[in-house]
């Protein structure tokens, strides 16, 4: 039941359901090998789990045999003295003994299977925990580029959904398959000991059953795939149209859109029906084959039993009594159950292997290259930065910076202006080594930055970006983030300097108020002020600032402006500038166009030079 639910939820909700294609053998072996390595950490626990499973299943297997003994003890047609029904002939000693044995067996089996379930949960949770830790640790090692090119949702799905899938498969399916093997083999042996002749029934029905399910699943799988695909299309269409709700209303196109939706709807329901139509055969047919086995066993068993009762000197192979027939029927049910389950479990394994592969792919993603062996730590930084003839592209085929050069002396205010996509943010990415340039030199205080340790380089910078980043934690922790050893007074001072102290004090818990998505309401502007306070606390000599456009109301805007001026004091500043006042006050304006600095100088110089900047400034502001 669980299996089925899981499988179903996956196929409709997971867009990747269809991508779980079969892997080739070599890849699969590699993946399985790596999973095994995780499991080997718990080899003793695994061994204990295996033993528990073995014993509890064997105990459960003994059930029908023991009950067969009980039935035989009850059966008045003892083969030894065939004759009429005799009341009071039940062998109560045997009945009592075996009933007690049965209860003990079942009780022990129950305790063991509980212990087993808990143990497996423990192992699989430990493995998930370890994997999550490794994946997360690896994420923090990955270059920024990974996060720029992968959606957050995708990363989240690796660490939650994929690991959960693998975990469920490890704890459930693996056990299930072992238990099934034991049950099948065990039942087979038990049936063999009861009556090899009756077993012949399965020579007919088992292959039929296997062939049928294989044939059907092969036929139905594409139908189910089609069903998910159609449903996916329907989802896509619905999402698309819902996002256009207002536009559709504006043009009054509701009926039109609904009639188109109906087409997708019909197709999706039709695909569901077709899969259902074929699928609805499986259950009854499997039941039918089981019923057929039951019928054959009844007939054959009945014949043998009758002969045992009436014919004397029967061949020992044909001798069977009532308890044996009963036990045999029970084993036959145990036997045919798992065989039909195998196909299901195998497909579960397939998706678990795909999930594992996605996890391992993430773990194999190259981390930020290590610092050079002889890399020095940048100390006592003054803040003089120079870029010379830098070439760079996010992908090698598409160069974005074509030999860019710039220079900022200690304490300079450098304004970078230019249209979106000209390479402004790229410059920042290279300065902080979020990405590494392809050629050219970048130096801080005369040191080539690739010869420095990344940590020390980045510590030389502090930054305030347009996309404010706050995490779920207290206001205090958000401000102090990144500055070890700051005291409470330092934090308050920084908040005051950022003009956010009064607001923080007005919060229910003051500095200890927890910021969360659904918690207190904090505006975009206030968030910006908090990140400014964070930057304020740092004594890094270089500031990187991505000026916000007017996305906040005019009052907060003024506060932010003042806070930023305070922050810029005494630092070398690179500002992606939007504000005319910043641009005018800059020691140097860099006009970046198409990956090159086309003009640089002060506002007056640029105006005087009568170049591009001047012509556009005049066009805008006169």
């Amino acid at each position, binding site marked *: 039941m669980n299996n089925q639910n899981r499988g179903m939820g996956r196929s409709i909700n997971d867009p990747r359901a269809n991508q779980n294609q079969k892997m080739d053998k070599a890849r699969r072996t590699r993946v399985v090998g790596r999973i095994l390595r995780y499991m080997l950490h718990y080899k003793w626990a695994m061994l204990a789990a295996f033993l528990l499973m073995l014993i509890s299943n064997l105990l459960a297997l003994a059930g029908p045999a023991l009950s067969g003994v009980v039935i035989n003890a009850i059966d008045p047609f003892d083969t030894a003295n065939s004759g009429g029904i005799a009341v009071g002939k039940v062998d109560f000693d045997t009945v009592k003994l075996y009933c007690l044995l049965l209860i003990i067996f079942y009780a022990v089996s129950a305790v063991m299977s509980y212990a087993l379930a808990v143990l497996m949960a423990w192992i699989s949770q430990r493995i998930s925990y370890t994997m999550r830790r490794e994946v997360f640790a690896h994420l923090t090692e990955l270059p920024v580029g990974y996060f720029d090119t992968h959606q957050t949702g995708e990363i989240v799905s690796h660490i939650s959904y994929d690991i959960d899938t693998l975990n469920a498969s490890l704890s459930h399916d693996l056990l299930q398959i072992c238990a099934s093997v034991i049950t099948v083999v065990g039942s087979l042996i038990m049936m063999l000991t009861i009556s090899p002749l009756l077993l012949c029934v399965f020579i007919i029905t088992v292959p039929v059953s296997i062939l049928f399910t294989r044939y059907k699943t092969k036929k139905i799988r594409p139908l189910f795939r089609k069903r998910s695909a159609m449903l996916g299309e329907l989802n896509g269409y619905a999402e698309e149209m*819902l996002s256009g709700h207002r536009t559709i209303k504006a043009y009054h196109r509701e009926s039109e859109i609904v009639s188109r939706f109906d087409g997708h709807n019909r197709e999706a329901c*039709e695909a569901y029906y077709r899969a259902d139509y074929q699928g609805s055969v499986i259950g*009854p047919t499997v039941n039918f084959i089981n019923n057929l086995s039951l019928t054959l066993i009844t007939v054959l068993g009945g014949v043998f039993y009758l002969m045992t009762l009436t014919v004397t000197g029967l061949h020992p192979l044909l001798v069977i009594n009532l308890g044996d027939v009963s036990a045999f029927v029970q084993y036959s049910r145990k036997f045919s159950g798992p065989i039909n389950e195998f196909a299901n479990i195998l497909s579960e394994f397939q998706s678990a292997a795909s999930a594992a592969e996605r996890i391992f792919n993430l773990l194999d993603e190259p981390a930020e290259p290590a610092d050079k062996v002889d890399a020095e730590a940048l100390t006592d930084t003054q803040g003089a930065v120079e870029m010379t003839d830098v070439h760079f592209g996010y992908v090698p085929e598409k160069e974005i910076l074509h030999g860019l050069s710039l220079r900022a002396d200690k304490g300079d205010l450098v304004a970078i202006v230019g249209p979106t996509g000209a390479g402004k943010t790229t410059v920042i990415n290279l300065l902080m080594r979020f990405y590494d340039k392809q050629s050219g030199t970048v130096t801080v205080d005369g040191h080539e930055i690739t010869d420095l340790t990344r940590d020390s380089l980045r510590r030389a910078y502090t930054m305030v970006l347009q996309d404010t980043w706050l995490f779920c934690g207290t206001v205090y922790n958000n401000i102090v983030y990144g500055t070890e050893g700051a005291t409470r007074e330092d934090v308050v001072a920084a908040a005051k300097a950022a003009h956010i102290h009064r607001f923080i004090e007005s919060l229910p818990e003051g500095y200890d108020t927890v910021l969360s998505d659904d918690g207190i309401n904090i505006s975009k502007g206030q968030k910006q002020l908090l990140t400014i306070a964070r930057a304020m606390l740092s004594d890094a000599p270089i500031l990187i600032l991505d000026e916000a456009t007017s996305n906040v109301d005019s009052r907060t805007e003024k506060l932010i402006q003042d806070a930023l001026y305070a922050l810029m004091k005494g630092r070398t500043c690179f500002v992606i500038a939007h504000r005319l006042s910043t641009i005018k006050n800059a020691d140097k304006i860099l006009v970046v166009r198409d990956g090159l600095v086309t003009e640089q100088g002060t506002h007056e110089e640029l105006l005087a030079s009568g170049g591009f900047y001047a012509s556009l400034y005049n066009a805008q502001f006169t």
Partner: protein
Amino acid sequence: MKRLFAYLCPFAGRMSVGLTIKTAGTLVELALPYILGMLLNDIIATYAGSGDTQGGLRSILIWGGVMAVCAVAALVFNIVANRMAAFVAKDVATAIRHDLFDSTMRLSCARADAFTVPSLESRLTSDTYNVHHLVGMMQRLGVRAPILLVGGLLITLTLDPILTLVMFSVMPLIVLTVYIVSKRGVPLYSQSQQAGDAMVRVVREDAQGIRVIKALSRKEYEQSRFEAVNRELMHDSLRAAANTSVSNPLINLFLNVGLVAVMFVGAIRVNNGLCLPGTIISFIQYFTILSNALLSITRIFMMFTKGTASMNRICEVLDAKDRDESESAAEGVMPLPENPERYISFENVTFSYRGKTDNVNAVSFDLPQGGTLGIIGATGSGKTTLLSLLMRFYQVPVGSGTIRIGGRDIRTMTPAELRSRFGIAMQNDFLYAGTIEDNIRFGRDITHEQVVHAAAMAQAHEFISKLADGYDHKLTVKGTNLSGGQKQRLLIARALAGNPDILVLDDASSALDYKTDAALRKALRENAEVQKASLTTTVIVAQRVSSIKHADLILVMDQGEVIGCGTHDELLDTCTVYSEIAESQMGGAILE
């Protein structure tokens, strides 16, 4: 649920046939263990007693044949019934989903916002899917399991009432187990779910803040933060798992104990001549059937709960009262005489989405026909609210001011009448997978020539004709295969294709360069002359000064109020916020 039955009603005939067949199929299946018991008990006993082996064999074969016939009948009946069930489920699901989508499309914007797009989407997909599944399975398992349970119970009662009672004595224990485990499980489960959410939140946060984390070298700190939530998740999941792990072994144990009890009591009864050994074997058979039926019933129960929850969510949308069609609330308001100088007029309009703080406060202005209105301000300042009110996506309550178009209160117009006057292009507006022509036509009754004409006015014709397939060029979802400027021009073409009186550009022209913008204006003017129609009135909402600086009238919005009103040059002198905005956009705009 009542709603669901209403949908099932038209299929009552079909369903009752299907259900009858299903019942028959289940009953014949129940006959199998009955025959098994009978064969072993009565028949063999009788023939063995009389020593008639030949007769016994014949009898066994005949009854075996009956069993085989029953098995075949069960197969055929079940397949036919399942298929009929699937058919009904298909039609019901199609109807429900159609009605739901129809309702969704006709929801007022306020209501749609309240539901939110992801929620509406999941109602349309997974909820209808659940209902589809429910309708299908209820007709199968829903019939099968109770019949197996009741039928099995009845048969065992006829076989031996005492043994039946013994067998069912373990039921209360099983019910109790399920009850206690699920009662303890729900909080444990939701706790581990929360722990999972907390874990995901850290990952999400860090993926978004990776630059800050790296810049501040906080790798170790983040790892320790993750360690805490990760550990918590492991512990909570383990506790939940430990709880659920109890239920299966315990239920199995109770069932098996019941079985042993049946054998033991059976032994006593056989000994007293009250029952036959074969009966016990039948009991063991029925026992398997009954416990499977019991499992199915718990499964149905879960499915039913899930399906009901889904159906309720669907009904919420179906029953949403405030559809768009809600009639005008301003009867008896006399239309003002048509006045081209006051073509669009806001008179002291105040509006609030949630009824608490005013999102728009006391806005008044007049725009002449053919004029251009620019609205600028920060996000959340009320720009888009003004537009929504103008197009009556939201309605201004009576007494909170009046909006007039051509002298008429817009509350006296039907939405269709009102909106047919508009052509609108929004930023990141909606382009769908289909040809360019489809996207411009947007399902309206518009000829190819009109499409081309609109595209030409919107300065889109040039780039479209450069494409290999021209107007038949296929767009991807959201038009991701076009550039921002191309998309804008396409949207404007769509807006113009209906020959609107009023063209609304909601942050739409920000991707247009100055030259294109000017060409568009010129085309609009020429078109009005050629058509001898009145000039198109334009409303532009923008964040950038450059998009609206040529407007005849500019409104500067701040926190829901108009804090500046005039032309670009006037505002530069009179409105500090406006000049600050203009100044703050200098760097970004300077080279665009």
